[in-house]
């Protein structure tokens, strides 16, 4: 097949929206970090993010051009590969940042396997569910799909990276939903989560077993009782709300956010980058961002619907669910309607692994889009010839 044909079948709307988000993110990262006197250059973070974007763009093109359907056969390779990486990160060579062991130093790049795990689990579970699609919607399928998810979820949690674990769980649930799992199973899963949370938060600590780290419990409690201690765990949330709230309708202007520039806002180029946007560009800037996300989600869902294969639909749906969940939890966290869990904002937050993973996910969407278009082209041609 000619390269030009591939290019013609690219979803340029999706590409444009993602490009807009990435560019937007770079501007905000620059605003959030350029005045840090400890940096060798004001462009330090922007340059690093740019490298990640370049790498991600190449990988996105690779994934867009290869036939995604080939990945279906590599379920076990992917599963074992990501599991090994997640185990490796727990070993002493894993880098520790802010109390979590998350990175594998690759020399030129600190890889965060948990970000890759999000894509990997989408592919693995989609592959499994596609294999099972001719069977009934039986309990067996749901249990095995959950078992697939459980391994990376537990390994990620062990790091500890509570946020990514939640993403894996959410994506798994979304995949099961799109696949058509029976409602009863969701009800049972929901009940199991509720019981599990009750055990983890209330029962086990009493008998001396602490599964969540103290700061994780604190964050959850602060979410439930905001304003309890403004300088401790609630400090981040309060400063984020002040940043966003004080941005008002039109914002204080790029590079003019006092909460950001004077460091009142913590983690302002990573987890709380949305607060920077909210402070400096206001409600209007946020609306533009949400509009770009809406385009991405819309294109993603459209690809889910037009995919010529169940595997394609599941992968596309999984990617969309991953984006939606991360967007909602991240923004929700900055405005105090979700607990602080450390989930990055897709395409915006500073972080190479996350950027590469998200661009790879976009590559998968494009690949699905291209195959669907090619198939429908061919079907159309056959119809023309037959007709």
């Amino acid at each position, binding site marked *: 097949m000619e390269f*030009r*044909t591939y290019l*013609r079948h690219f979803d340029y709307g999706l590409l444009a929206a993602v490009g807009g988000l990435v560019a937007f993110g770079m501007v905000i990262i620059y605003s959030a970090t350029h005045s840090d006197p400890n940096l060798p250059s004001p462009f330090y973070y922007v340059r690093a993010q740019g490298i990640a974007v370049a790498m991600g763009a190449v990988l996105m093109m690779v994934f867009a051009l290869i036939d995604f359907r080939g990945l279906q056969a590599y379920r076990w390779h992917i599963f074992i590969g990501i599991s090994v990486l997640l185990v490796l990160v727990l070993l002493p060579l894993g880098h520790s940042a802010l109390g979590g062991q998350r990175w594998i130093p690759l020399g030129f790049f600190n890889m965060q396997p948990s970000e890759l795990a999000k894509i990997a689990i989408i592919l693995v579970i989609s592959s499994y569910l596609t294999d099972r699609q001719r069977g009934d919607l039986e309990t067996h399928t749901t249990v095995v799909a959950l078992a697939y998810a459980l391994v990376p979820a537990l390994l990620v949690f062990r790091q500890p990276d509570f946020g990514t674990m939640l993403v894996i769980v959410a994506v798994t649930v*979304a995949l099961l*939903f*799109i*696949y*058509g799992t029976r409602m009863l199973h969701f009800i049972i899963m929901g009940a199991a989560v509720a019981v599990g949370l009750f055990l983890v938060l209330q029962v086990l600590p009493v008998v001396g077993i602490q599964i969540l780290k103290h700061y994780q419990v604190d964050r959850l409690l602060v979410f439930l009782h905001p304003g309890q201690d*403004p*300088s401790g765990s609630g400090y981040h949330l309060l*400063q984020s*709300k*002040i*940043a*966003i*709230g*004080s*941005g*008002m*309708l039109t914002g204080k202007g790029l590079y003019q956010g*006092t*909460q950001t520039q*004077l*460091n*009142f806002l913590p983690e302002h180029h990573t987890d709380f980058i949305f607060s920077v946007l*909210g*402070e400096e560009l*206001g*409600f209007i800037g*946020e*609306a533009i961002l*949400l509009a770009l*996300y*809406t385009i991405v*989600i*819309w294109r993603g*869902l459209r690809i*889910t*619907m*037009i*995919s*010529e294969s*169940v595997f394609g*639909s599941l992968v596309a*749906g999984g990617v*969309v*669910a991953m984006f*939606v969940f991360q967007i*909602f939890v991240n*923004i*929700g966290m900055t*405005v105090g*309607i979700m607990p602080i869990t450390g989930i990055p904002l897709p395409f915006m937050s500073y972080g190479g692994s996350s950027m590469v993973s998200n661009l790879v996910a976009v590559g998968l969407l494009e690949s699905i889009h291209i195959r*669907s278009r090619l*198939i*429908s*082209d061919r*079907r*159309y041609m056959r119809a*023309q010839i037959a007709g």
Partner: protein
Amino acid sequence: MSSLFKSSRRARRYERQAPSIAFRAGMLGVVTLMLFGVLVFRLWFLQVISGNEYVAMAQNNRVRFVPNEAPRGIIYDRNKQPLVENRAGLAVTVLPAALKNPASELQQLSQIIQTPVSDIQQELDQHKDDSYSSVVVKKDITPDMKSYLIERIPLYFPGIDIKKYPLRSYPGGAEASHVLGHVGQIDQQELKEPRYKGYPLDAEIGKDGVEYQFDKYLRGVDGGTEVEVDASGRPKTDATGQPVDLSKKDAIPGNDVVLTIDSNIQKITENALNYGISLARAKHYPAPGGAAIVMDPKSGQILAMASAPTYDPSVWVGGMSNANYAKLTNPSAHDPMLNRAIEGQYPPGSTFKSITAIAGLQEKLINPAATVNSTGSWHVPGDPTVIFHDWSALGVVDLHRAIVMSCDTYFYEVGYHFYKDNNNQGIQKWSRILGLGSPTGVDLPGEAAGRVPDPAWKRQVGKTPIDKMWLPGNSVNMAIGQGDVLVTPLQMASVYCTIANGGTLVKPHVGLRVEDAATHQTIQDLEPPPGGSAGIDPHNLDLIKSALIGAAQPGSAIGGVFAGFQPTIAGKSGTAQVAGKSDYAWYASYAPADNPKYVVLVMIEQGGGGSTSAAPTVRKIYESLFPQAHPAPAAAQAPPPPST
């Protein structure tokens, strides 16, 4: 082929996935829209509906007001010698909102500045409504503490800062400490008083003495600077490293106050008082304290006011430590913070006889030529059960001799005359005219009123029916300054001012004028208007004055304390008896007797007789006031007879 595709693009139909998957993907879309809707609603609420609140909070975050305390005015003596000045101190401040981990940071700070955490917390608690303002938690830290803190503030103590702070300094040490008073931080109670309306929460105010009395002049107007700070509390700097001031208001120093006090006379008086006390103690009297006053009898200006024991007002600078406070309030310290000259109330003893004499002459109950025979004791005619003792059997005495020799019997008779005269309240009347029984109105806080007993007072305080009655003995005792009469040393000094100046009432005062700190122009005259006449017949006053001259001469009740002293001194001793205590020694005087320039009064608590300790103290003062005018006090060394 490509052209075929191109032309047919619009006609292309997509084969869709199984409708169920498409349907569920659509549901995912609906869920997404709902979630985004929640976010938009929340953002609208934060930014548009409550945006102004958050703007204010962001402003509070970044703008810090660094107050610049105005130095208080300087307090000068009448010759412009500074009595209270300012020096630059260093204060540690804490910004509660900027503390990351208050408990551990305050704990460490407490060790560095050697102040209990509870004290720091107490300061912070007083300002907890306003966590964006720095609170001064320790004033006057040592240079060592400063350098130690300065190094560590950026890393370990965001929100803790050191700033310059004007502190009071006392060039004369404890000199005139009771008059000057001290400053301290305003407390919650004071903040509610109308006097301090509009004062900032951590205002430094005068707590006592002149500092309190003239606070409104001495206080300046605080200035301050608004600076932009980052999250760790560091001021944002411009390219040259200078903090970016958002606004700046210079502090306006307080005005200077010039007092009537003469620093030299004050020192003389304090030394003399200590000398008198040691004299009394050498004679085995307890003499825990005393007061001495030097006044100008014409103007009522207080040239010196001493109270012993005293204290060093610098213990208040930078905050009184609990240890120092315990030391000052220990009973064995005998109330060093009490200004005995205006807050102490004592029976006046025989110094009161001048008042009884004036009352008797004015009410025409005394004929100056009439005599009484002093046999050493006296009783109310017809009631020999209660004996009134005299200090000596002086024989036949008239008014002049009665004052010179301090004859009790004569004044018992006078007191009894008042009682007999239909319970005449003349002594009370003249006591009050001369200023007893109510504060003199001196421009110092805490003045006591003293007490002039009368039948109404007895009715009020008496417990038994007999106690409630005014008895002959009450008039008799009052006539010699005993019984229930109580005066402050300043009241008695004022009485002798009136006698000395020929009958004009005086308003004792320490404030002379207020001067602008920069230009030294007088902006307020603090002297009260001259008092009116007491209404004493000049002839009567002359009788008293001539008797007071005699009472200071050798051969009087005090013996030769002032023998040969030039210029001539007029005065009256007093030995007041207090149940269960040694006698209280008084001496009230003025000199030169013919044209009085000074009134000098000394009172020594439990200092024995007036001639034992009080009169020698007065002489000591006059020796310095009239350095060339007196011969060697050889006669003063002669042992005086026991006296009243």
